[in-house]
């Protein structure tokens, strides 16, 4: 890795004066991280004029001998720091400290993407890298993030996994993939991010809305996935990962290949294939829970220091079975399903995926260009296009048996541009703008009323961010952003619904057509959103640091919150949006305390989030139809407070053992009605003990205990309903949360060197070792079936 730094070093002035003296002076020094004062290991100190170089040791120290007195130009570089040119005047043996700025942005020299603002020390963020991500090669983004304190997931079964950051998910989270904001109908709980985790080399999770570059509406936070860096040398390299797992009897295969040249040209291609059959709980088969997934990506470009461009294309298709027993006809079926200890339909294991299922294809094209201006900064321009085509299949009869019930095609275009003024090392600014257009088309040939209407959406945003290093201990960030959103929809409302919602009073001017039992309506809404952020980090001493930040953000209601209108079969409920919803406003404050010594690292994060007009979906009653009664769930608004604490501890014991604890607690209150908020993650604590033995094939083994507490603070939305076939009135319990549960997991791997450039890593993972029955509160299928039983995964990883 160090080697490639040389290629990035652009200039090193010749101002060496030779006075014909004896050249035996020694220069010693320590290279230190500018922000936290820790010594930097593996930094390169290079004197180009003499072609001499040294590398720092574990204490950050280096030594260069046989120097002549006079002025020397040093180039100091490190993989994750800003390369620095320093002139040192030496008259005798000299010792100097050199500060490098720890700086992800500077990776622009070697990486395809530089995710500018997330370098910031003043936001709550966590980074996952290579090996951790590779362990989840056969799973989802949501699975990989669950081991971060404060991150949980909301699931529909086990293949549809949505990340939850500090209790917030879906439209409140921005997912950035390769610098593109993912536009994939993220509003729905059963719409998982369309992203192959294998395309990410690094994933950064940012809590709260403090990364304004990506958007102003990320009330929950931002997930940034970045591909691997490009090596700026002539090389050809790649990796393959093959995983097989017992539960679901599935496999996953990923392979990637990269070619790069010294001049900066590169190309890389990736592919991932997954196939899973029916998963199994400890006692029964979860029928129709299989998965078929295909993903491809291709990226190429020219990477130079002064300018460059990238072209990127990805394709991902997921065909996901939805538990057969979760498909319901009416409230009676729901009551029967909830009261049945086992799913009402279980068949023998099968790889077949039948209805109900979803089949989603996401394609993304991106082109970007950057140029640096000497002593000024860097300009970036990017255009991206995304197409998300979602089919959902219900159980239907007759000729429509194989016809999709939902067929939505979402196309999104976006242009973004930013300019970063980074000439001064202690004062940086970034300004940028974003323009986006989106079109949703709901195919009427499904023969089922549209759940989401056709619409056009326009977004325009401007932001400015300032980063100030006030002194060696203190960094300050401030940001401001303005967004304009406009949505223009055309939607059919049944006249009875239009009246029941009392829309004729406020929205009668929106009606543009009369279709017998339905109105055609043209809602046009505009929203102006302002967001701001401020953060400060302070290094108390070598081991202790704190940060505080504040974020203001606004989120306009999404199409689902505004327009949902219809029967959702997999939930046996009628879901209703509300045209009257306004944007929600979040004020979030948070603080971090970090302790870091050689063997111990502790991170305590706390936050408080006040959200006005908080939009949520909750049961409000029942409606009678010819199918029988259905519960009605409405998108409503209230004022909410969320607060919580996340704790992470890593303790080395000796040189082989590592103890870890990750715990999080969160509370959500509806302060307007003095109730608990729905869908708030349970408190959770993860404890693990790991053993590593580098000498022996880089061996490691970890045993992990995951304890999830019962969520006792839930809103009571239970209601009573009359069941005609039994002539009884029963309580429909859609609220009571499942019991606490405790899972034991195990992971071990070892790496074998097959040749000079080829490594084979063999890994074994066992989850739910004790094969216990459990149900997770935030899994929507918990009403119908237990979660997964024991699973063995064997993974082979070849690097070449």
């Amino acid at each position: 890795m160090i080697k490639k730094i040389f290629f990035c070093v652009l200039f090193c002035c010749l101002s060496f004066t030779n006075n014909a003296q004896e050249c035996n002076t020694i220069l010693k020094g320590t290279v230190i991280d500018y922000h936290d004062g820790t010594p930097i290991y593996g930094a390169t100190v290079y004197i180009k004029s003499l072609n001499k170089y040294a590398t720092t040791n574990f204490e950050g120290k280096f030594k260069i001998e046989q120097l002549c007195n006079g002025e020397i130009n040093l180039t100091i570089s490190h993989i994750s720091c800003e390369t620095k040119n320093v002139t040192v005047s030496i008259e005798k043996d000299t010792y100097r400290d050199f500060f490098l700025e720890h700086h992800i942005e500077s990776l622009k020299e070697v990486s395809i993407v530089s995710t500018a603002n997330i370098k910031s020390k003043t936001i709550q963020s966590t980074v996952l890298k290579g090996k951790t991500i590779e362990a989840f090669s056969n799973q989802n983004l949501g699975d990989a993030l669950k081991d971060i304190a404060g991150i949980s997931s909301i699931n529909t079964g086990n293949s549809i996994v949505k990340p939850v950051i500090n209790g917030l998910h879906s439209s409140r989270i921005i997912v950035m993939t390769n610098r593109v904001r993912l536009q994939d109908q993220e509003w729905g709980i059963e719409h998982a991010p369309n992203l192959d985790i294998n395309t990410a080399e690094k994933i950064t999770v940012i809590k709260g809305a403090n990364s304004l570059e990506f958007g102003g509406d990320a009330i929950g936070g931002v997930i940034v996935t970045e591909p691997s860096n490009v090596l700026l040398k002539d090389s050809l390299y790649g990796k393959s990962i093959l995983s097989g797992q017992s539960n679901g009897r599935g496999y996953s295969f990923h392979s990637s290949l990269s070619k790069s040249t010294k001049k900066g040209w590169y190309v890389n291609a990736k592919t991932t294939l997954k196939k899973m059959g029916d998963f199994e709980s400890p006692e029964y088969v979860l029928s129709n829970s299989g998965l078929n997934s295909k993903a491809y990506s291709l990226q190429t470009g020219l990477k130079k220091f002064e300018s460059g461009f990238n072209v990127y294309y990805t394709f991902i298709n997921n065909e996901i079975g939805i538990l057969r027993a979760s498909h319901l006809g009416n409230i009676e079926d729901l009551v029967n399903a909830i009261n049945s200890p086992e799913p009402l339909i279980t068949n023998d294991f099968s790889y077949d995926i039948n209805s109900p299922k979803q089949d989603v294809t996401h394609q993304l094209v991106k082109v970007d260009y950057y140029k640096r201006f000497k002593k000024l900064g860097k300009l970036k321009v990017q255009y991206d296009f995304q197409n998300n085509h979602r089919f959902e299949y219900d159980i239907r009869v007759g000729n429509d048996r194989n016809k999709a019930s939902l067929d939505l095609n979402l196309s999104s275009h976006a242009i973004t541009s930013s300019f970063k003024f980074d000439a001064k090392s202690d004062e940086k600014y970034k300004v940028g703008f974003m323009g986006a257009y989106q079109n949703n088309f709901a195919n009427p040939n499904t023969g089922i009323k549209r759940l989401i209407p056709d619409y056009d959406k326009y977004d325009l945003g401007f932001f400015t961010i300032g980063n100030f290093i006030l002194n060696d201990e203190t960094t300050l960030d401030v940001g401001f952003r303005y967004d304009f959103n406009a949505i223009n929809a055309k939607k059919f409302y049944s006249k009875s619904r239009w009246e029941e919602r009392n829309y004729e009073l406020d929205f009668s001017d929106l009606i543009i057509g009369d279709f017998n039992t339905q109105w055609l309506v043209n809602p046009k809404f505009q929203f102006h959103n302002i967001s701001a952020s401020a953060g400060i980090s302070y290094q108390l001493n070598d081991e202790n640091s704190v940060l505080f930040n504040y974020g203001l953000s606004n989120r306009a209601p999404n199409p689902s919150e505004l327009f949902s209108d219809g029967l959702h079969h997999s939930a046996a409920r009628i879901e209703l949006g509300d045209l009257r919803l306004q944007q929600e406003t979040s004020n979030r404050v948070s603080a971090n305390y970090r302790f870091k010594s050689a063997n111990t690292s502790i991170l305590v994060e706390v936050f408080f989030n006040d959200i006005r007009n908080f939009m949520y979906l909750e049961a409000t009653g029942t409606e009678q139809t010819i199918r029988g009664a259905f519960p009605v769930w409405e998108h409503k608004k209230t004022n909410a407070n969320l607060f919580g604490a996340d704790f992470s501890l890593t303790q080395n014991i000796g040189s082989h053992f590592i103890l870890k604890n990750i715990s999080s607690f969160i509370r959500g209150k509806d302060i307007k009605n003095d109730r608990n908020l729905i869908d708030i993650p349970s408190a959770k604590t993860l404890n693990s003990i790991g053993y590593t033995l580098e000498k022996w094939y880089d061996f490691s083994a970890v045993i992990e205990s995951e304890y999830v507490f019962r969520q006792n603070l839930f809103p009571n939305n239970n209601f009573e309903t009359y069941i005609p076939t039994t002539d009884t009135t029963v309580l429909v319990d859609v609220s009571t949360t499942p019991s606490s549960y405790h899972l034991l997991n195990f992971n071990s791997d070892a790496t074998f060197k097959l040749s000079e450039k080829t490594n084979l890593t063999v890994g074994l993972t066992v989850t739910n070792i004790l094969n216990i029955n459990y149900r997770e509160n935030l899994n929507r299928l918990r009403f119908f079936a237990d979660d997964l039983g024991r699973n063995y995964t064997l993974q082979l990883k070849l690097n070449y």
Partner: protein
Amino acid sequence: MHTLKNKYMKTIKNLALVLFVATLFTACSEDDPEVVNEEELITTLTATLRPSGGGTDIILKSVDLDGDGPDAPVISVSANLTVNTNYTGVLKVENETESPADDITIEVLEEDEEHQFFFTPTNNIATVSYNDMDEDGNPIGVQFSLATTTAASGSLTITLRHEPMKTASGVRNGDITNAGGETDVQAVFPITVQ
């Protein structure tokens, strides 16, 4: 610095142009969406009861023209039932938003192994038995018999289940308890036997 500014301005101009083109592109898609033809919508369930000794048919009807909309179905029973009488019954399910109404009973009968009607009376107002069967010899329920005995009042619930487990205990005899499957139609009729 001056050339830099020019370059930057040029880029902004180019971006503005692209944005403008994107706006034009959207301006073309102003067509109104097509109305969805709801093929599987069931609006109406009609049970016709013909007294075996002759007389006027009794019609039980549930009509819900707005489908999944907020309006509750309209339930009607044309007359009271008579004590100690056998009735032959026929069921019909329709989509009356179409003109002429779409007879969905035909589809039910085409896939008769996957469908079954269930009749659930309360207060022992009547007993119901099946008069038809699918290819496997299991009941469907489009044709049925209903017999009354003493005077009583209560309700009769008629339920159409899709993919019921017809072989489960009691299902053949019309007991819905173990039937499973999904409810396609359910209507509760108030009945008086006198």
